């Protein structure tokens, strides 16, 4: 009986979601018709402006998808809270992984667009000292020395003291959670965002460089005598509040890029060349500094699981894959939405092809070559026989893992070189590290 009830509940929610998604898509099509007409007339010439418009369209679609999938995640979390079981926990984990697909493809917009870069910390800050949020295994917990909030355990404590200040944490609201980010001045105090949710769903990964992710039991969310590790109500409340916050944040960013969104308007009043620079700068910055550098080469040189991006869920391979995909999207002017619809239009690739067809094919091939290497990493990590997650690939002495990661790094470097050449060919000037909003 109870099971039937649950199924009905699920089906109803799913139906509502589908309706929401379809409605949104429909509205979008109607709204953007005048825009599309303008585009079609310009399409033959692939004007620089139409390419920047397409860039904004992709940003809007990506952030909208990130919002939809975050809403789905919240539904799943509400389910977990109401009916805690291994099934609802697993469903929430799946919803989290799905939510990462569009979000990671949005990262390419961070670089060059200060509005995104200044905003993203609240959603995707990492690494985090998880003892701020919940219980941890003291034996294996490593936190940043001097971080006064590293053992605050917000789930367990209705008030916490940081240095000489005592904070009232009795009511775990989204507002309170925002105020706890970078508590006591430490960047490792990350109270909100995808990684906070990830930790609450998976728990610590205690397997180091061995196989396996975090393994939090569903009973951590059960009430009364079934509750494990204490404070299950507050834990569920915390999880709910951070997912609510995530939706608020994504909703804000989605509106910024909407057809009448303030940021889109600002972007389109600039010289289109500036828009093109932002696109190429974003592609190059994410390729080189962030993905190849911070997230991969540093992890590889340090052989450190602490450097793994999605460390609780062992989902890092997909995070990296969709980061890279986001870069390719911008060059090709296309994006595949979560419902399978394709967004496509005037692209940098077309513009480059008109003047320098050789260069266009070199960069297109390089971007595809990069995707091939990330696909290999995904295949290795998702293998049913001997899965090798990213934290295993970067382990000391793993020759095969090192090769997989290195090949992807080299491909990213190669594509960045070509991105710079494209900027030169389009007479956009050098993409100097000093001329935009984030280090290249």
């Amino acid at each position, binding site marked *: 009986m109870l099971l039937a009830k649950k199924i009905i509940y699920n089906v109803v929610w799913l139906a509502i979601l589908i309706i929401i998604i379809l409605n949104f898509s429909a509205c979008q099509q109607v709204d953007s018709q005048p825009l599309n007409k303008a585009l079609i007339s310009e399409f033959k010439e692939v004007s620089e402006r139409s390419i920047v418009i397409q860039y904004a369209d992709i940003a809007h679609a990506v952030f909208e998808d990130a919002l939809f999938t975050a809403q789905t995640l919240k539904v799943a979390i509400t389910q977990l809270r109401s009916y805690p079981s291994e099934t609802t926990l697993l469903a929430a984990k799946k919803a989290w992984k799905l939510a990462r697909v569009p979000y990671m493809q949005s990262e390419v917009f961070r670089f060059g667009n200060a509005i995104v870069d200044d905003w993203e910390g609240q959603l995707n800050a990492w690494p985090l000292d998880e003892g701020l949020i919940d219980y941890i295994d003291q034996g294996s917990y490593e936190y940043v*020395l001097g971080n006064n909030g590293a053992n605050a355990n917000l789930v367990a404590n209705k008030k916490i003291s940081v240095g000489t200040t005592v904070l009232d944490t009795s009511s775990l609201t989204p507002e309170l959670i925002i105020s706890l980010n970078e508590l006591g001045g430490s960047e490792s105090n990350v109270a909100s965002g995808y990684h906070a949710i990830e930790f609450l769903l998976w728990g610590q990964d205690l397997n180091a460089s061995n196989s396996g992710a975090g393994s939090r039991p569903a009973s951590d969310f059960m009430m009364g005598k079934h509750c494990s590790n204490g404070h299950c109500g507050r834990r569920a409340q915390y999880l709910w509040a951070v997912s609510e916050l995530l939706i608020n944040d994504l909703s804000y960013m989605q509106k910024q890029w909407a057809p009448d969104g303030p940021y889109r308007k600002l972007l389109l009043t600039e010289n289109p060349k500036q828009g093109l620079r932002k696109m190429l700068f974003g592609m190059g910055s994410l390729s080189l500094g962030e993905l*190849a*550098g911070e997230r991969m*080469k540093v992890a590889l040189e*340090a052989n*450190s699981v602490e450097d793994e991006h999605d460390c609780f869920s062992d989902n890092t391979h997909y995070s990296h894959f969709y980061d890279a995909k986001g870069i390719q999207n911008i060059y090709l002017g296309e994006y595949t939405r979560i419902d399978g619809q394709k967004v496509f239009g005037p692209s940098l690739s077309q513009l480059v092809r008109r003047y320098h067809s050789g260069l266009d094919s070199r960069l297109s091939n390089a971007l595809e070559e990069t995707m091939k290497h990330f696909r290999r990493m995904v295949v290795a990590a998702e293998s049913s026989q001997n899965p090798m997650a990213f934290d295993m690939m970067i382990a000391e002495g793993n020759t095969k893992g090192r090769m997989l990661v290195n090949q992807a790094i080299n491909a990213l*470097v190669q594509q960045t070189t070509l991105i710079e050449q494209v900027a030169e060919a389009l007479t956009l000037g050098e993409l100097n590290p000093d001329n935009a909003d984030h*280090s*290249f």
Partner: protein
Amino acid sequence: MTIFKRFYLSVCIGLFLTNYSLDLVANEALPGGKASVHNYGHNAFSMPSANMSITRRLDFNVGNSFFRNPWVIAPASTRARDGLGPIFNTNSCQSCHIKDGRGHTPEGTEDSAVSLLIRLSIPLSNENQRKTLLRDGIIPEPIYGGQLQDGGIPGVKAEGRITLHWEAVLQIFPNGESISLRKPLFEIKDLQYGQMSKNVMISARVAPPMIGLGLLEAIPEASLLAAEDIDDNNNDGISGKANRVWDVARNETSLGRFGWKAGQPSLMQQNAAAFNGDLGITSAIFPQDHCTEQQVSCLNAHNGGEFEVSQKILSFVEFYTRNLAVPARTNIADESLERGKKLFQQSGCANCHTPHHTTAKLINQPEQSEQKIWPYTDLLLHDMGKGLADNRSEFLANGQEWRTAPLWGLSHQKKVSGHTELLHDGRARNVLEAILWHDGEAKTAKEYVVNMQKGERADLVSFVESL
């Protein structure tokens, strides 16, 4: 001479001067040569050399990560970044070189002195210590070593705690105006390993900004030595002496370039010394932790392997620190700055704060190779008088001598660091206070500034603040 002729002549001279100064101005606006960057915000000191190729920017990023991220206690899952302590001042480079910029003095008396540290030593008392003096430049305090570490891993006590009080010092100008300077009085409290030697010498040091260091390293040794005038043979009251310090890798005494007393010969060794002294991280260059025989818990603590920072990671950090770029100057064409620049020359400031150098040709360092740079330093040691003295020698630098501090990047300090403190212990709250602390060899120049008209002094300060 007819009026027409005079007019014609002045136009010609004017044109000549304009051309000349335009050329000069164009150079001066880029203090780091082609490596200079155009970033003027909070991140102005964190950018890679503008002339760096893209593949090398990947290495810059890797170096940045090891400079920025905290090191942890051994043993840890992050083996490449473990080995902090047992005693230390901080857990990452970035926590003192905040935003790759300058550190600051503690705000309150009881605040921890994170971006400031205290060096310790005792006078030479017997001939057996000569070898130590040759290698370390100092004789370390017998219990606490060459530096006070005010942090410790669990189970190992911090050596002590730094407290700071300020004493007001009044400076009166000839026009009757006066300003109140502040002199720091440091005290070391809560000593955990017994009493310090009675004749201990202490020297407080604020973390210096990280920009342009690779360019300073690339100034040819010969051109620095050419400016030496140890016995003041030219009778200008300014000596100028290069420090000669121990180079571990070369196993010989070499020219000192880095640190407040030019106590380190190269960036590689400077970085390794900071890892070792400030973070308690061992390396091939400095393989020992800073535990003395009396610090048993320190000696017995778990360490992070033979060399806690590998040579590979040190090389990434070296590359990073070589390439933190100097930001371009934004405002140079102002009339008051032109006046200030002249006064900077006339007063004699430029005799030690040498405006301009050309770096050597370097095959493997294209970013630093053959650049015309404007650091405003001669990298030499000068007697700065009793007021600034730490009375603690370091290799050839005596207790009153300090290395001329570079002035480039000063126009960006407020935005990067949120303060305008200057000098080795951060006592000067602004450029004028820093100038007024100058004495010794800089006495004539300082008095020139004191005796200036108020407006002239403002022009001079504006010029220095525009660098």
